[in-house]
């Protein structure tokens, strides 16, 4: 009986007018989809090099207010439209623990004081195991906070989520962005996004499930990914993109291997759609994050752990001259009981007043904030 029904459906299915009708509908549906993809503007970076202000060298540092957690890590920073600074980081008992929260604190630019850190995300509403690596993005659509949500296992079982805020104070619930076809797993975020002229953003992401590779995701104002461009291969992760013109940019990568490597970089000439093969900067490090920024004279600065073994040294280096300034240099053992002498995960931004701000993890217990101007760079 069933085979008779199937035969009837098949017989009906191959009738010529129906076939032609379905084929016409397929042509229309394909044309609609192709047109939507085709009409996207070519990617064009918005470049914001800081103004060259004639001033004396300036370098100051402070700790961000404590969250009274056992552990803090991976700070991010963004300048709000009123010139206040917004910082976010995560903290809890330890990485991937269920008690981890993402905290935000705001620096009032008139009083110079940071607000008391406030927990805004712990992943429970999004039904995830833990959260980490917040990245703040401020553009004409408001403030966005991208972060990593661990679904299963460790960091490699993560996905990327986003929260919105009109002002940095009130936040929407988190929602996921789709960056990978495989259960949407394995993708992480850690570096700042770069604005495109059409209102989309270039969000540096990286893959850690099975194999590692860095990529640049183009994300629209509705948090929909409209392109993902590979930027390299294993063991490169955590791309940090510095745009130099509307179409040109340099990306620096973390060498994520057990053996010492070098900070590598790749370049693009088409707004991040395609990337060159990676090359060496000659800066030796091992499996630690890198941050970079553009100087008014179009040269670059990078902040990285300038040591082949651990993260006890953190330096600001000018490229291509190679002159450096030590931000941290601790001769004591890296691990000393519960103390972890690690100065890592630098996040560097330039603000509209011509200054640079870097925040980084200080011994995994505090977030340090260093402010400097171009005159202080060696």
């Amino acid at each position, binding site marked *: 009986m069933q085979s008779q029904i199937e035969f009837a459906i098949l017989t009906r299915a191959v009738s010529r007018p129906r076939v032609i009708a379905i084929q016409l509908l397929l042509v229309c549906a394909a044309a609609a*989809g192709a047109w939507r993809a085709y009409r996207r503007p070519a990617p064009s970076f918005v470049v914001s090099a800081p103004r060259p202000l004639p001033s004396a060298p300036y370098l100051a540092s402070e700790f961000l207010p404590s969250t009274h957690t056992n552990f803090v890590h991976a700070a991010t920073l963004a300048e709000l439209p009123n010139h206040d600074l917004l910082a976010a980081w995560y903290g809890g008992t330890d990485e991937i623990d269920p008690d981890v929260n993402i905290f935000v604190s705001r620096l009032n630019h008139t009083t110079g004081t940071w607000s008391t850190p406030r927990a805004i995300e712990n992943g429970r509403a999004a039904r995830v195991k833990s959260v980490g690596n917040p990245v703040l993005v401020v553009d004409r659509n408001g403030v966005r906070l991208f972060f990593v949500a661990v679904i299963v296992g460790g960091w490699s079982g993560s996905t990327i989520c986003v929260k919105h805020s009109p002002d940095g104070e009130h936040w929407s619930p988190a929602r996921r962005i789709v960056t990978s076809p495989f259960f949407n797993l394995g993708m992480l975020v850690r570096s700042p996004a770069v604005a495109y002229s059409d209102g989309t953003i270039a969000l540096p992401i990286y893959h850690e499930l099975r194999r590692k590779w860095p990529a640049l995701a183009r994300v629209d104002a509705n948090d929909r990914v409209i392109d993902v461009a590979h930027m390299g291969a294993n063991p490169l992760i955590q791309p940090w993109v510095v745009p130099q013109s509307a179409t040109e940019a340099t990306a620096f990568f973390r060498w994520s291997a057990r053996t010492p490597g070098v900070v590598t970089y790749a370049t693009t000439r088409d707004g991040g759609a395609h990337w060159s093969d990676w090359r060496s900067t000659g800066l030796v490090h091992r499996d630690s994050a890198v941050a970079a920024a553009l100087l008014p004279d179009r040269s670059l600065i990078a902040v990285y752990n300038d040591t082949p073994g651990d993260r006890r040294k953190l330096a600001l280096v000018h490229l291509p001259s190679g002159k450096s300034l030590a931000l941290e240099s601790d001769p004591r053992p890296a691990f000393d009981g519960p103390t972890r002498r690690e100065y890592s995960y630098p996040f560097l931004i330039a603000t509209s007043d011509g200054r640079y701000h870097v925040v980084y993890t200080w011994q995994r217990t505090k977030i340090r904030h260093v402010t400097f101007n171009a005159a202080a760079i060696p």
Partner: protein
Amino acid sequence: MTRLVTLLGTPSIPLLALLLDLLLRRRLFSPRDRRALLWFAASLSLVLYSSTLGYLPLDVYRAGFSSWAPIAFALLAIATAPRSLPLALTALAALIAYDVPIFRSLNLFDYVVDPIIGLVAIGNAAVSAAGWALSQRPRRRDAAGPAG
């Protein structure tokens, strides 16, 4: 349990079509259609997920964002339509879902395949291949025949 639902994410249109087929007591697809759909899902999953996990030096997923992806997929469906209208209708449903779009993804691959149908299809292909291999063994013995 909630985390499992979170992990599974959104289903592809062919997976929904196969589930509908099950609900309709297998009256939507013929056995030949079902086999064709599963072999298509198995081959696409193998290439797409191998590439995503870094085992292939190709960026297959990116093709799903391009303007030619829906055209290529529609051409395949147009060629399939005279042989199987249910398969062409499934492809049309996937294209319409992508055009709307009904999920958060703007990548055609997320509407055409997903890891669940991929795993089922690869499992089915493996079982079929093993069955075929086993069925060939006595024939080879027969083909050899008695000497002399």
